[in-house]
């Protein structure tokens, strides 16, 4: 890999507008990428890694300015290239793929048309030639039936297919450098594994240099040749993947790697024989569209699910998007009414309760949601949000507010922070508020729907640790829904794997993860990025 660098950044600094949380998004960043290598840039949100990608493309918003440094690409400094020449570079010289395949394609134009646009603006090929090139590109990225895919609109493709189309588009003109900004973060784990392999294969075949931005050390272990670790807009460590992953030198890198949950389960805890929650044959079917039952689309979101949760245990429900795990969670708390089945909580069948009874009983079972910023009312103060539940259930306001402040201390927040609004907290702190809110009613069972998916790894580790402590201290029983097997391995005693609405396998975490029986579980475990790395390294949690 000692080839001539394709792109080298020399002391690049990018200034943020006044009023931002820091003055510089990037501060004296220097790195270089050679052809035929994959350089992973790792960092948590706000580390400036995406800003770097946009700066290289010169696609930073108007108020953000490239202040100093050089970006040498193909013998010229991109910092001083004029806009017209820069447009020549974009797409043809440096191409980019983005995180959200859902929103990165224009919903109103066909996939083929959007790929063809690359050729239309950068080449003089005829319409027929462009058509052929588009088809061969779609074949290259192994989209099933490329002809149909070319004529399809983005919404007609799955997330993985859309990301394949994006890759096809980015590689259309054989760029020297491909910038991939978290290209697999929004994808399911099996799809992620496929896309990573595809990027790897295409990169090796075409000898492209790839700048791969990610927050996930698993992905780094899977794909990187060299690694750059960023924190607060500065590079804290760089080196070969092997060195950085196995012999990290900077404390921040060590901390990040330690925060990655390993795939091996901790030794099992003794489980109570008393089941607090028993779910038998719960099913939920969605019907959409259709007029007088004609043309209705029926989706069986949950089919015949049966599970038990021992008192004080944590039951993980894992599965990919669309597997019905969230629907099942919502059925358990009766946010959705299941079609049939029984949900026994402490001997009471929740399915048979009436709306008003549910409202009374709901304090026994509470939910923590995925997105901590979207699930808290932005116009109410944090303490009020936490106290709201008890007040509704009849606690006097003053008492509820005092208890709310105690809860803040319990979840590791400053009790005086209760007077602030949700947007004044960080993501991890907001999730702590979400926990405090759920705990305010002193529930027996907590349903946590992807509680850490939106958080950075280090914050994720803290929240998981907190959840474990609370479980011990308050004797909580938890249903923990996640798509991340590594997280499930860390916090759960029991795990159930869901696929297409069915529970395909369940049992003790250690058993399921070390000796998976069902082929789908095996596939899921094999897809965990950096599997070997995740299994081997020891966590500090």
């Amino acid at each position, binding site marked *: 890999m000692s080839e001539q660098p394709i792109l080298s950044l020399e002391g690049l600094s990018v200034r943020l507008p006044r009023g931002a949380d820091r003055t510089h998004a990037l501060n004296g960043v220097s790195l270089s990428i050679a052809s035929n290598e994959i350089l992973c840039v790792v960092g948590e949100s706000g580390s400036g890694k995406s800003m770097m990608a946009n700066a290289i493309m010169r696609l930073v918003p108007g108020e953000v300015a490239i202040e100093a440094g050089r970006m040498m690409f193909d013998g010229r400094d991109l910092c001083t290239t004029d806009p017209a020449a820069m447009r020549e570079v*974009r797409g043809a010289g440096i191409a980019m793929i983005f995180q959200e395949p859902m*929103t990165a394609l224009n919903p109103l134009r066909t996939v083929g048309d959007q790929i063809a646009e690359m050729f239309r603006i950068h080449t003089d090929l005829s319409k027929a030639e462009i058509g052929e090139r588009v088809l061969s590109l779609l074949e290259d990225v192994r989209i099933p039936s490329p002809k149909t895919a070319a004529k399809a609109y983005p*919404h007609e493709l799955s997330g993985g297919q859309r990301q394949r189309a994006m890759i096809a588009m980015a590689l259309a003109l054989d760029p020297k450098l491909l910038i991939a900004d978290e290209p697999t973060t929004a994808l399911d784990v099996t799809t992620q594994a496929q896309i990573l392999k595809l990027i790897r294969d295409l990169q090796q075949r075409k000898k492209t240099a790839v700048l791969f931005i990610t927050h996930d050390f698993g992905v780094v272990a899977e794909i990187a040749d060299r690694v750059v670790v960023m924190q607060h807009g500065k590079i804290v460590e760089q080196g070969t993947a092997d060195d950085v992953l196995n012999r990290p030198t900077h404390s921040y890198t060590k901390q990040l790697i330690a925060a990655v949950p390993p795939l091996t389960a901790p030794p099992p805890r003794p489980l109570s024989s008393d089941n607090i929650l028993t779910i038998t044959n719960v099913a939920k079917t969605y019907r959409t569209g259709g007029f007088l039952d004609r043309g209705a689309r029926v989706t069986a979101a949950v089919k015949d699910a049966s599970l038990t949760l021992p008192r004080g245990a944590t039951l993980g429900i894992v599965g990919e998007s669309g597997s019905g795990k969230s629907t099942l969670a919502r059925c358990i708390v009766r946010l959705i009414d299941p079609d049939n089945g029984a949900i026994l909580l402490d001997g009471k069948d929740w399915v048979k309760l009436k709306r008003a009874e549910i409202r009374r009983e709901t304090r026994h079972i509470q939910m923590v949601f995925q997105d901590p910023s979207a699930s808290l009312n932005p116009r109410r103060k944090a303490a009020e949000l936490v106290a709201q539940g008890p007040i509704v259930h009849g606690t006097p306001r003053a008492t509820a507010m005092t208890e709310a402040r105690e809860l803040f201390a319990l979840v590791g927040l400053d009790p005086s922070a209760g007077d602030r609004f949700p947007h004044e907290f960080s993501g991890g702190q907001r999730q702590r508020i979400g926990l405090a809110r759920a705990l305010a009613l002193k529930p027996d069972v907590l349903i946590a729907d992807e509680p850490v998916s939106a958080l950075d790894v280090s914050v994720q580790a803290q929240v998981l640790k907190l959840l474990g402590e609370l479980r011990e201290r308050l004797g909580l029983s938890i249903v923990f829904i996640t798509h991340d097997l590594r997280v499930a391995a860390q916090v759960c005693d029991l795990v159930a794997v869901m696929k297409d609405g069915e529970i395909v396998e369940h049992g003790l975490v250690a058993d399921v993860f070390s000796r998976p029986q069902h082929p789908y579980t095996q596939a899921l475990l094999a897809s965990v990025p950096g599997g070997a790395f995740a299994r081997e390294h020891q966590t500090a949690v």
Partner: protein
Amino acid sequence: MRIIGLAGRRLAASIPTLFLILIGVFLLLQLAPGDTVDALMAQMGGGDAATARELRKFYGLDLSIPAQLANYLWHLVRLDLGFSSIYGKPVATVIMERLPPTILLMTASLSFAFFFGLVFGVIASRAVNKWPDTLISTLGLVFYATPSFWFGLMAIVVFSIYLQWLPAGGFEDIGEVRTGIFRVIDIARHLILPTLTLGLIFLAIYLRIMRASMLEVLNLDYVRTARAKGLDETRVVMGHVLRNALLPMVTLIGLQAGTMLGGSVVVESVFSLPGLGRLAYESVIQRDLNTLLGIVFVSALLVVVVNFVVDLLYARLDPRISAEG
């Protein structure tokens, strides 16, 4: 094809609404004192109670209110809008005479507002917070805040009386008989001021929506993708932003068709255009219930048709619609 079925179903669903509106209007007008016969007698210069009774019997106004309503609806089912006692003609004929100016005025104003709203919206969003944006947004606010009758009157003062460029009112020049292209030009000249007057408020609305919608779309991920492909700004806007930004505008047309009909009452009165709006106003004054109900029916029909067309247009613009059903 699925989309036509969908729109057709929406069309069918609007029929009960139509009947509810008619019944509502019918009952509301019963609350107002006086009826057609009172208005007729007043026009004739008065008469005795016997004549009034005769007339009421002749027009079926002596029946109970539910009976009158049932009578009316029964006629309506057979597409008979009844007879206007004031005009002495079938209501359908009266409305058909008055419909063309209104439809012309509406189409012209809508096209004017839509086109210029779009253009100015795009210009404003491309120069956001710079002087063209400030100028356009301020003008938009002025247009939006000014009552249309005042605009109409001022336009007459300036363009018809002071400058004498355009006629002050009417649908065409009644002094001369013109045919063919000359008649078209003449009508167009008469319609310029009313179109501007009615269109300016809608222009202001469209302009603001278009600006906001453009700004929103410009921040979306696929616009960044388009830029990362190396497209220049013009192609980014034309190829990726415009059509997406148009969607809320198209929805708005459907929503505002009704408002525009309402606005045409004022504008037609100011410019003495023989249109549907003025007919409605006159019918209320003269307690001409049949004509009024006929107008309500036709206006509602017009709004339904506009929405039907908008639905089709929307489906044409947005491929996601037909899939989601």
